[in-house]
């Protein structure tokens, strides 16, 4: 974690109200892992007092470029869209805990809803680099809001669902998951909380439906890793990237909690990535 002054290199609108910005921030690009986020300080001009958290969309250590993908939802993100290449923006990061991929997992299923693509996008890069197979299931309201495939690595399979059927499957992206759950060794998701909740239900019943043996030397009968540990997450089938309104982003203010089975969990410190078993899904609206 460090404070860096990141130089905006490129800013463009990729979808309605959604922007992709590239920053030159070698310290961040070298350190960030998929699932982590940066806390961006927006301008003071309108009395904004909080930073804005954004998932690290991609990070390239070789070029020192970090990208963030965001939707303009208020004055802070609006301010960011007015930034021009060359401007310096104050970022705190990388923050949070990353996705943990089991070294034995070969087939990764990434599920993204809308802007949730920003949360899992970097994992696709990392997985492709490590020689894994990746399928991204993506859900959007209509064809106009579908993440452009040109911005994704060539090696992946990209399957789209839209609410109105204007592109790909008609319906929710979660309806595509059963077709892939047998193929996938692990799944990673980011998106609206109802989507994540549905995925958690699917993941909880997967073992029984498919009759999958537990991985591990003792067939999973050994002592379980403590909930929330990196090792436990690595073994979890589904990892989700959660979202919450955030204050400090370093774990001091306890503002960004989601309810976990073992009490409140800070999205900024214990998360944003959680194994689906860690979250008390009944409390998620």
């Amino acid at each position: 974690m460090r404070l860096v002054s990141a130089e905006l290199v490129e800013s463009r609108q990729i979808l309605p109200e959604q922007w992709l910005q590239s920053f030159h921030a070698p310290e961040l690009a070298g350190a960030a892992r998929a699932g982590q986020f940066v806390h961006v300080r927006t301008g003071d001009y309108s009395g904004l007092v909080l930073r804005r958290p954004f998932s690290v969309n991609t990070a390239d250590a070789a070029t020192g470029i970090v990208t963030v993908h965001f939707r303009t939802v208020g004055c802070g993100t609006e301010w960011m869209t007015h930034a021009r290449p060359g401007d310096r923006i104050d970022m705190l990061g990388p923050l949070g805990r990353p996705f943990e991929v089991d070294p034995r997992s070969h087939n990764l299923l990434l599920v993204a809803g809308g802007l949730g693509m920003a949360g899992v996008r970097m994992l696709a890069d990392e997985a492709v680099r490590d020689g894994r197979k990746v399928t991204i299931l993506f859900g959007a309201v209509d064809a106009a809001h579908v993440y452009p495939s040109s911005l994704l690595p060539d090696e992946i399979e990209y399957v789209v669902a839209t609410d109105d059927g204007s592109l790909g499957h008609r319906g929710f992206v979660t309806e595509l998951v059963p077709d892939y759950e047998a193929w996938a060794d692990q799944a990673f998701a980011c998106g609206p909380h109802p989507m994540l909740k549905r995925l958690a239900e699917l993941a909880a019943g997967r073992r029984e439906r498919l009759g999958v043996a537990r991985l591990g030397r003792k067939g999973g009968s050994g002592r379980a890793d403590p909930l929330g540990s990196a090792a436990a997450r690595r073994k979890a089938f589904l990892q989700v990237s959660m979202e919450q309104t955030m204050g400090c982003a370093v774990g001091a203010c306890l503002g960004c909690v989601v309810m976990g089975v073992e009490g409140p969990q800070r999205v900024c410190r214990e998360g944003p990535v959680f194994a689906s078993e860690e979250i008390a899904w009944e409390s998620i609206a």
Partner: protein
Amino acid sequence: MKARRKVVTSPDVRPVKPKRTPTVRPIKSAIVPVDRSRVRPSAGRSAPPAPTLAEREALDRIDLSVELAPRRGLRLPNPIMVASGTFGYGVEYGEVVDVQRLGAICCKGTTLRPRAGNPPPRVTETPGGMLNSIGLQNPGVDAVIEKYGPIWQGWRVPVIVNVAGESIEDYVEVARRLDGVPGVAGIELNISCPNVGKGGLQFAIDRDAAKAVTAAVRRATDLPLLVKLSPNVADVRPIARAIEEAGADAISAINTLSGLAVSADRSRAFLGNTYGGLSGPAVKPVALRVVYEVAQTVSIPIVGIGGVTNVGDVLDFMACGAAAVQVGTSLFADPELPVRLAEELRLECHKRGLASCEPLVGTALPKRGGAPSAKGVEYRP
């Protein structure tokens, strides 16, 4: 608002951009933003021009230290503290802030037993501020002492433990357990949390209750004792007077103002706890008013809290009678702010030819000897 971040640098001096060529050539943007004037590259963290050696020596001679508990001894190296609940236990920001350069750390509100806090969402941004309703989530006093006591012991910076409770017995028991713990420099009595059902505001809005809890804690411990006032009262002066009489060493003012935010679809309140506490620059005038009133009521030191974002705010609070200030919400945007404020305060003293910051305190208060201020009653219904 516009000039806020350029406190020391004169406005016409543009920050010098380091000569760094991005490895990837900038691609011409398809959409060109029109309003260039709205974008101001982040320049707030650029350091003021380095002083010369002679200046540096003169600056170092300035004594910024303040004594918050003259009878018991709570000397802060400088008057810039961090406010409870915004800095955790002092370790969270360790990677980006040199905590040893702070005046003091007020840790997260600590209760006798562990508390899970309020249901999420717990924070939201509001114009010029934020609402929070954490609900005093904390692991309990014993866990805090066990986990952080040894860390604090090794620190130069004083750590003041913020204490909350549901009953007088709770407050007393927590204070008793903190008494004598190495690394605990003092106690800040949180009798003004607006976000918990029981034991939140009830002590801060009632003069007798405030007096009773302060006196009880005073008997239980000899640690320096600060009591944090709430602005959610009609008149803060009798409460401040009662707290002083009960033996508090200092008063901190203010805690958050009770507020509310509505969800985006207008179907319910946004925060999980419905109500939240408002903090940030938006509450600064209220905080100044309370400090101004309390300063004319009591003779113990006052710690001003509420919307401090630059050295001007620090000077404002000091002028209204605060011996020290706490930085809270602004930390979230700018974690380095408190450390920078201490340096900027030093410069301000140097500019005015002062050897310490003490003469800055109370300059805006009505002059002594004159008729006592009757202001402050007429604006209330």
